[in-house]
């Protein structure tokens, strides 16, 4: 049990070290490739707004790139239509390691579409997702928070929320 404890500790230390390295590499300059796997384009509208002067994504060290080979982070929207699955895998493979996959919006998280002959009903079956951003569509503020969570600059705070509230509704 002691050896098990030590090796668990060693793994934890290594993963913390890796997390810090990735945070240092990605924390100040991160290039994003967006991938639409059959979304209604609302998510794309919100993502586009991130680069507008009001939100000004670049000030935080994030940039959009059209080439997966230049990207560090893959932002995936839509329910992963079957026809796009191959292209999604190729895009993922083309991004150099280390890379982060962010599933964006309720469709990508598996909420809106059931898996059927035409769609996988979510991104997780095709790509290894690291960060999940809910919303339909997620607002630019929610996307910003998601990106900062993805690079380790903000903590995941949703795990502490319980969405239960006693007393009079507001």
């Amino acid at each position, binding site marked *: 049990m002691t050896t098990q404890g030590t090796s668990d500790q060693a793994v934890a230390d290594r993963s913390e070290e890796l997390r810090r390295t990735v945070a240092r590499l990605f924390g100040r300059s991160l290039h994003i490739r967006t991938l639409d796997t059959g979304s209604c384009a609302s998510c794309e509208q919100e993502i586009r707004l991130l680069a507008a002067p009001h939100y000004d994504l*670049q000030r935080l060290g994030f940039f959009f790139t059209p080439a997966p080979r230049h990207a560090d982070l893959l932002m995936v929207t839509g329910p992963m239509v079957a026809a796009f699955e191959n292209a999604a895998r190729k895009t993922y493979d083309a991004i150099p390691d280390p890379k982060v996959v962010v599933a964006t919006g309720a469709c990508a998280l598996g909420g809106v579409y059931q898996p059927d002959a035409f769609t996988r009903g979510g991104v997780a079956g095709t790509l290894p997702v690291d960060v999940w951003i809910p*919303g339909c569509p997620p607002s630019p*503020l*929610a996307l910003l928070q998601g990106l900062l*969570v993805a690079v380790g600059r903000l903590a995941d705070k949703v795990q502490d929320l319980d969405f239960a509230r*006693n007393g009079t509704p*507001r």
Partner: protein
Amino acid sequence: MPLWTLRGLRRGIVTTRYPARPDPSAALLPTPPAFRPDVLTPGLADRLVAVCPSRALARDGNLLVFDVGACTACGRCRAAAPEATASSGEFELAATAREHLIKRIPLGGSTR
């Protein structure tokens, strides 16, 4: 090579921290619902599950299982049961694990 290019390559080009100031538009965003466990009964929970268009709600025994990731904040559950639901006001919902978005809400109304 100019000095600022070297500095930018080494340190990145972050110019501000986030958030620089609170965003006034945040109060207007549609947000997922919060539920009142003291009012929710099994019957009411079943009604909410039936009314949800995106499969965000399910019932598991004496629990209402709320998948925040699947919620589209459409407001149908709020319209169906305004006494048992409220706007959560939470929009910064990014999670590092899918399970973090699954919330289990006890149905406390049945015990009264």
